[in-house]
Every structure is written in structure tokens, then in C-alpha cells.
């Protein structure tokens, strides 16, 4: 029974989030570390290189790693203070069992007993309701080895189609758009290609706060003469000094791209030769764009006509360019259409596959790229393979040494999985690296669904906000307690190195998964003894797939400071072994040979051509209305990360931005009688929230912004809508209608909770 065992304040008192600060050996300047471990930050998709200072079995600090080429020692505040997540007072060092009578609602139990209980409950539920009554939620902050293992575990051990991951809230619109246009899902170029380009277009990306290291690349490009275009409803730090700001109304990005493309077509600012030789579908797109006159585009998007014209002129006439986007255009029920709109601008320009020109999506999580490649997605098998494709199934079944008939088919996305729990179809849940009570939209519904589970086991290193609903909690591993690979924002596969051992009875996540398989008496395929062994199988499983890792080794990664996939073990053309294959930093270079096109062209379709897709504009679901007249948009702040499981436990990061606030323009605030720091209530069709106002001119006057890292009554996702993109199934976090008023009273939590709780 997945209900909360005791009063939430009681749980918080025992399991946090509490704050860790520098103390003891971490504050002393007399202590020398035993060693420095070269690894990467545990947070965002930039995956900055960092050296951890280790003393005994504790990470006591960090030292910049200036040799790693992507960030050259640079870090954001999260990277600087990430080490404080280790040796934390809230750290789970034993397994826990839900126990309303215990302090904090959970009682410690032995690891062996916990595993036995998990196995017996899975067995019981599957006997009673069938294999499909068990589901798994996984995550993209895990190493690729773990993501691969989880995908295999769900299908082979649990025998369920129901696995999905939190990249569903992050990377799937970009992934789906990339596959439709290019046949491959990866950023096209290393970031170094940005420096020296003529125009950088940043679409829906708060770069300075969500991917800070990219700032230096953009501004270095600007120093070399690039013009910077930023498309955002807020003047973020990257927009502050841009050359052209496109203050788009939330949810209108596809219209803006179509309007710009129409002007490019009218003025002949497109690369006809490239379009002719290397693409399909342009005429149909051009037909669609005809309706997007500058006047109509301005009316729909809220971007002044002169700015739309200037954007078309700069983008259209550039000789080199770099466009990237992030969740700002992707978190929509038209997320894939928005992505396709951006890609259309790139393809029409012909500026792709060349030095100083590129396109990409900025990944959110540590393994936002690698975590979406090797099978933890509901429709996917390793190597970016398709679980519905008979050839792909056959190959993976052979690698996993199972009968293809026993391999389940496609499952459903993470939110649909919640709906299936709510509908009573799914009775048991395993979650790891996923905190849906904070991160999923309309989380009052999520709570209702969770409470219907017969059995819920959460694996985590802290008791995250969702794990409070679990029957059993298994103590997993921090990033620095394990090794493995991740693929960062550029598509560069890098190596996470182990710095310390898990404390107490905590275990590396892959061991926990295998222990469950063993306890279920289904150990086949789950007897790995190290991440390296998992990686070796993953190399084989990915071989010949689009995300081909077969030529990547741990050693090659260390030697080259990362390897860009695809990196085959055997030459695609000749079949000869190519142990020295360096990987593929830049995709789509003229004359390049890939495993799909086989020489027909640089793109990953049999004819080697890229696809234009009509990127149709549709108004958002739950758009503004008379009843809910103000746009609500959500996002991140620089000192917090995702659902805050880690960063809301790190004192110096909490100090920086302690609690969520409602960003509101003074013109709107004045109409509502709201002043800076007033308690303000924002309300949507799904819920309401009371937070302090932050009155600033840096946001559209018809829009409010709330960062989403907090839980419970402070969670922005009480308000957001669970409408999803029909293709990618990403939720529409970035827009819905809301109403705002000065609060009648301070919120009920005032004085009871610390800022981060």
C-alpha cells in the first residue's frame, strides 16, 4: 500500500531534506587529500570534468580539472558544491520498510530481508495479475550501463513492457524531432564549432542557468563577431546582451519558425542546391509556410514584426550558423513540431555538417543523451533500436540469449504509466532516479495514482519526495560511488570514475537490480560482476545500431577525453576491424558513410537525405482564457537541479535561492495590487500555490514564471497540465493558463518548514 506512513513533517524531520555544510575535514586546511579522482559532475548534461578530493572514504572537496577540453576547469555553483552530497546526514545507509509506528514512518531492515520482500511482492503481484502488472521507472542521471541494465531487467527479468524513464520529461521531443528529420538523435557538432560562426540562435534555453558552461562558448562566438539571437519569454542572463531578442509568447514557437522560414523563402535566403541534393519534403513545407506572413506571425507569437524580419535577414544571409534549443521549445504538447520548426530553419540554410555550423539540443540531465539510447525508453532497444522492429528484436534477443517471442513489445510513456496505475492495471512499481511527486505535471494526480499501488519499491540514496510513498526503500549509490559512462551534450561518451565506496548497507544500483533478479530466481543475464562487464555487453548490443558504441572502450575514452558516437568496431563499408576508429565528432559531413544510408548520403535514412517536416502550429492545451488569463511557465534556477533531491540538501546552494518565487512583471503586478515580496497565489484548473512575488521587468507582462525544484505545497507542478505531445509524450510544462492574486493569508507551511523542505 503506497500511502504516506505518517505526517509529512515527521518524515521530513527524520529524513530531510536537511542541509549539509562544510565542516570537519572539509573545512580544515590542514588536511591533505589521499588522492584526486578525475571524473565528471553529477548534475547536468554538460558533464564538466572535475577532480574530487578524497580522504579515506569521504569526498572532502574538489579541484578544477583544467585539462578536460569541454570545460577546462570551469564549473557552475552546483559543480563546485556537489561534493557536499556525500557523507550527508540524510544519506540512506540501510534499507527501509514502511512502518507508521516507526520514527519518521520508516524502520530500518536488513538489505537481504528487503530484497526478499521485494522479490516476494513482485512474484505475488505477477502471479495474481500477470507479468504486466509490474512497472519500472528509471532515469537519465544514471550511467549508460545502468540504463542499459534497467531496460534489459524490465523486459527479461520482470517480463513487463512497462518501463520508461524521466527523460520523458526532458529529451524526448528533441529526440523524436531529430529522428524524423535526420534519422539520428544526437547534437550534430562539438561545441567548439560554435566559435567562429556568424549567427548563434538560442531557442528556449536559459543557457546561463541551466547549462552555464555553454555561456562561454556563445560569448566567445560573439567576441569573434557572431550575432546572438535569443527566443524566450524572459530576459534571461544570456538574453541580456543578445543582439536580437525574440520575446515569444509561451507556446508559439512553431509559428515563429514558420514565419521566419517564409521570409527566407520569399527573399531567396535558402540553399536551393542543398535542399535539392540532400533533403526531401521541402515543397510541402513551403506550401504550409505561405500562410505565415510577418503580420500573422507577429500576431500569434507576440514578437514584433520588425524583429521577425531581422531574424530572417540575419539567419537567412549568414554563411555559418549554430542553432540550439532546449526545454523552452520542447516542453509543449507541440514539442516535436517546435523542434521540427527549428530544424527546418537549419536544413533550409544548408548549414549543417560543416565546420563552424551546427545544430543541437542542450541535454538536461547528466546522461540526457546516453540515457535515451540504450533501451530504458518504453519503445526502445539498445543502440537506438526500435522494440517494434522485427530485425532489431531478433538481434537483441540473440545478444540477451532469449527467445524473441519472450521479449515484450512497446510499453507506454511515464505519465501514461501513472494513468495505468490509477486505472488499476499496474499494481506494483519499482523506481530509481525518478522523483515524480516533484517532477511530473499535475502532481496531485500522481499522488492519487501512487496511493493505489499494492507495492512500491524505491531505490535512492536519499528518501526523495516520492519514496515517502514506498513500501520498501533500497539504499542505492551516489554517482561518485560507481563507475560507468555517460554521453554529454555534444554526444561525447565520457567516463565517470569511482571515488568512494557506498556507506553502510547501500549498494551500487546495478548490484541491487541483479540482487532482485537473483531473489526472483530469474538470474539469467544478470550475473555481471562490474560495470565494465555490462559495458562490454552493451558494446555488442549497440553494434550496428545507430548509437553504435562497439568501438568504444573505457581506455579509448580516457585516452581521447571522450569518444563521440557512432564509433564502430568494424568499418561500415568494408567490415574490417577498425580498433583506432576515433568516433564521430561532427555528423553529416559531405561524403560521410553511415550504417543506414550506406554511402547514399550523409543523413541516416536509406536515401541519405534529410527530411523537412511540416511543423504545424497548434495553440497550447489549456491556453489562456477569460477565466485563466495569464500564462504560467516553469523552469530552473542555476543553484538547484531537477527535483532537488540532491541540491535541496546542499546548504550553500540553498542559500543562493532558498525558496521558489513567482516572477511577475511590474505592469501586471500593479494591476493586481501586488508588490515585491508579497505573498501571491497562482491558480490553474488543477491546483494553486502561494509563494512570494518577485517583481521584475525581465519577463513578459502577460506571463508568470515559477521554478519547479521544490516539493509539496511549494511545487510548481501542482499547477502544470499533463497534456502531452502526441508523438514524444513530453508534458506541456512551459505553458498553461493561470490566474494570480494577492494571497489572502501566508501559506499553511509558513513557519513549519525550512526553505528547502
Amino acid at each position, binding site marked *: 500500500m503506497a500511502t504516506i506512513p505518517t505526517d509529512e513533517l515527521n518524515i521530513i524531520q527524520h529524513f530531510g531534506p536537511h542541509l549539509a555544510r*562544510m565542516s570537519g575535514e572539509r*573545512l*580544515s*586546511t590542514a588536511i591533505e587529500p589521499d588522492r584526486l579522482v578525475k571524473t565528471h559532475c553529477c548534475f547536468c548534461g554538460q558533464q564538466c570534468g572535475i577532480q574530487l578530493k578524497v580522504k579515506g572514504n569521504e569526498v572532502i*572537496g*574538489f579541484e*578544477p580539472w*583544467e585539462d578536460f577540453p569541454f*570545460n577546462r*576547469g*570551469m*564549473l*557552475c*555553483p552546483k*559543480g*563546485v*558544491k556537489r561534493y557536499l552530497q556525500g557523507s550527508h546526514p540524510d544519506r540512506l545507509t540501510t534499507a527501509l520498510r514502511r512502518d507508521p509506528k516507526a520514527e519518521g514512518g520508516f524502520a530500518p531492515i536488513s538489505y537481504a530481508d528487503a530484497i526478499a520482500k521485494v522479490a516476494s511482492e513482485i512474484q505475488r503481484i505477477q502471479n495474481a495479475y500477470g507479468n504486466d502488472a509490474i512497472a519500472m521507472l528509471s532515469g537519465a542521471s544514471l550511467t549508460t550501463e545502468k540504463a542499459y541494465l534497467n531496460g534489459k531487467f524490465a523486459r527479461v527479468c520482470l517480463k513487463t513492457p512497462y518501463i520508461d524513464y524521466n527523460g520523458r520529461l526532458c529529451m524526448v521531443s528533441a529526440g523524436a524531432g531529430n529522428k524524423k528529420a535526420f534519422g539520428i538523435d544526437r547534437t550534430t557538432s562539438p561545441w567548439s564549432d560554435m566559435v567562429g560562426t556568424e549567427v548563434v540562435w538560442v531557442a528556449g534555453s536559459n543557457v*546561463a*542557468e541551466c547549462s*552555464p*558552461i555553454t*555561456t*562561454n562558448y556563445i*560569448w*566567445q562566438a560573439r*567576441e*569573434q563577431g557572431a550575432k*546572438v539571437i535569443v527566443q524566450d519569454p524572459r*530576459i*534571461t*542572463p*544570456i*538574453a*541580456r*546582451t*543578445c*543582439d536580437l*531578442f525574440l*520575446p515569444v509568447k509561451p507556446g508559439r514557437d512553431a509559428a515563429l519558425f514558420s514565419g521566419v522560414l517564409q521570409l527566407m523563402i520569399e527573399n531567396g535566403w535558402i540553399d536551393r542546391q542543398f535542399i535539392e541534393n540532400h533533403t526531401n519534403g521541402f515543397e510541402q513545407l513551403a506550401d504550409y509556410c505561405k500562410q505565415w506572413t510577418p503580420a500573422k506571425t507577429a500576431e500569434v507569437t*507576440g514578437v*514584433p514584426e520588425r524583429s521577425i524580419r531581422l531574424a530572417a535577414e540575419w539567419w537567412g544571409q549568414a554563411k555559418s550558423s549554430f542553432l540550439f534549443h532546449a526545454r523552452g521549445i520542447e516542453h509543449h504538447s507541440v514539442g516535436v513540431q517546435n523542434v521540427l520548426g527549428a530544424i527546418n530553419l537549419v536544413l533550409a540554410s544548408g548549414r549543417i555538417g560543416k565546420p563552424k555550423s551546427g545544430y543541437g539540443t542542450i541535454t538536461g540531465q547528466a546522461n540526457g543523451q546516453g540515457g535515451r539510447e540504450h533501451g530504458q525508453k518504453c519503445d526502445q532497444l539498445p543502440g537506438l533500436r526500435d522494440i517494434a522492429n522485427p530485425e532489431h528484436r531478433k538481434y537483441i534477443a540473440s545478444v540477451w540469449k532469449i527467445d524473441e517471442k519472450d521479449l515484450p513489445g512497446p510499453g507506454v510513456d511515464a505519465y501514461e504509466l501513472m494513468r495505468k496505475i490509477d486505472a488499476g492495471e499496474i499494481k506494483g512499481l519499482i523506481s530509481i532516479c525518478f522523483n515524480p511527486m516533484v517532477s511530473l505535471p499535475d502532481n496531485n494526480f500522481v499522488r492519487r495514482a501512487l496511493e493505489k499501488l499494492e507495492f512500491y519499491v524505491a531505490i535512492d540514496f536519499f528518501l526523495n519526495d516520492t519514496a515517502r510513498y514506498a513500501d520498501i526503500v533500497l539504499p542505492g549509490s551516489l554517482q561518485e560511488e560507481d563507475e560507468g559512462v555517460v554521453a554529454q551534450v555534444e554526444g561525447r561518451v565520457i567516463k565517470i570514475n569511482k571515488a568512494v565506496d557506498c556507506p553502510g548497507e547501500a549498494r551500487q544500483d546495478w548490484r541491487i537490480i541483479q540482487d532482485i533478479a537473483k531473489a526472483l530466481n530469474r538470474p539469467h543475464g544478470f550475473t555481471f560482476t562490474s560495470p565494465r562487464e555490462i559495458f562490454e555487453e552493451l558494446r555488442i548490443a549497440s553494434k550496428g545500431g545507430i548509437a553504435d558504441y562497439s568501438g568504444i572502450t573505457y581506455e579509448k575514452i580516457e585516452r581521447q577525453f571522450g569518444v563521440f558516437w557512432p564509433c564502430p568496431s568494424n568499418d561500415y563499408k568494408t567490415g574490417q576491424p577498425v580498433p583506432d576508429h576515433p568516433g564521430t565528432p561532427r555528423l553529416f559531413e559531405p561524403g560521410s558513410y553511415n550504417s543506414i544510408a550506406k554511402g547514399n548520403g550523409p543523413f541516416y535514412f536509406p536515401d541519405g537525405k534529410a527530411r523537412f517536416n511540416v511543423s504545424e502550429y497548434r495553440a497550447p492545451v489549456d491556453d489562456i482564457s477569460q477565466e485563466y*488569463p*495569464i500564462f504560467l511557465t516553469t523552469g530552473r534556477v*542555476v*543553484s538547484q537541479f531537477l527535483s532537488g533531491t540532491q541540491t535541496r540538501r546542499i546548504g*550553500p*546552494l540553498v542559500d*543562493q535561492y532558498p525558496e521558489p518565487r513567482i516572477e511577475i*512583471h511590474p505592469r*501586471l503586478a500593479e*494591476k493586481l495590487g501586488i508588490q*515585491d515580496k508579497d505573498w501571491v497565489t497562482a491558480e490553474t484548473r488543477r491546483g494553486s500555490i502561494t509563494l512570494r512575488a*518577485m*517583481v*521584475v*521587468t*525581465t519577463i*513578459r*507582462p*502577460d506571463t508568470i514564471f515559477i521554478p519547479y525544484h521544490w516539493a509539496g505545497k511549494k511545487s510548481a507542478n501542482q499547477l502544470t497540465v499533463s497534456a502531452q505531445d502526441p508523438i514524444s509524450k513530453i508534458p506541456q510544462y512551459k505553458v498553461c493558463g493561470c490566474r494570480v492574486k494577492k494571497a489572502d493569508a501566508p501559506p499553511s507551511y509558513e513557519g513549519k518548514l525550512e526553505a528547502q523542505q
Partner: protein
Amino acid sequence: MKPEHLQFFIDPNRCIGCQACVQACTECDTHRGVSMIHLEYIERSRSVQTVPVVCMHCEQPTCAEVCPADAIKRTADGVVQSARKPRCIACGNCVMACPFGVPEVYEDRQLMMKCDMCYDRTSTGKKPMCATVCPSQALFFGTREQIEQLRPMSVPTNRFQFGNQSITTQVNMMLPKDGAHQMLVNVTDAMNDQPKARNVSLPVVSADPFAEVEVAL
């Protein structure tokens, strides 16, 4: 000794307010746990512009000149050191006098502390912590040749005017390349609402981009 050819450059135009410098500063060995950097919004209600302030390491440090206890020393490499513990009487003269507003008195330890350009690091050839981690490189530590090559649109200066006081510093401030005032920052003038000859050549979203947005309630 800090190597002479390596210098500190501040480019506030690049600052994104992320506080990586502030957080990293607390990791330094000479003042572990306390940040010596001041990072502030100019006026958050109107802009996301922030500015990082480190010690400018003046050639004739005002802080040292006004110190009644002779507690503040400038080493031969030009670095103005934090107050010497046995001498400092925590009177706060330096706090009042520093034109850049850098020193602070820590009442709990009865001591003035300020940025010493990560002396534990720079004296052994490493970069200061803040300039190493700064993700927008608003804080840069390197050679003049490097900064000239990396920042062709701006130029470093180390001369500042505060009323009648002229100050030359070790730390450089990056200024837009065009403009007659470029080799000297007149701070007093700049504090006026409408400073003379303000010429910011780097693009800044200044005119209200939301002027045309209607608020329909």
C-alpha cells in the same frame, strides 16, 4: 610570488550571476568556508545584470594607507594581502576607505579579511579559484596576449578615478573598445544617473522589449 605575466581581468558584461565564483572562493585554503567575493545584482527589478567584485590590488592601496596598525601589506608581486592577524585591530578604517568596497571586518574573529587573489594558488602558479571555475569567464586569469586574442571587442584598463583620487590597480577591468574614456574609468561620473559619454558598445537589451505586450485581465 605570483608570476608577473599572469594577470586578473574582470569583464562584468559577461557576468551571469551564477555565483560559481562565490562558492569556489569558500574552498580557498586561506579563508576556507568564507567567500571574499562580492557578487550583486545592480538592480534585479530592472535587469539580470550582476557584477562580481574581487580585490583590485591597488598599487597604492588605500586600505593599507589608512590602517592605523600597519596590518595590510602589499607583497613584491603586487598582491595586497589580507590583514595580518596579530596586527589587525578590526577598526574598520579600511572598510570605510576602500573605494571599491572590498574589505570586510569579521566581528567573530576580530579581523579584516579580503580577497588575496588566492595567494595559496597564484603563488604556486595556479589560477585563482574564482577565475578557474567562472563559466562565463567574466573573471579571467591569464596573460595580456591571451585576453587581447580572446576579447577583440574590449580592452583592459587598470586606472580608475574616484573624485580627486586616481587609482591604478593590478586587476584589470574590461571596457568596450570604442569610446574616448576607455583607458580610465571615472567611477564618480558613472554613479550619476546620466553619466557623461556613456558608450556601451556591446549589445545590451535596453529598450523595453515587452513594450508592446498587453496585459489583459
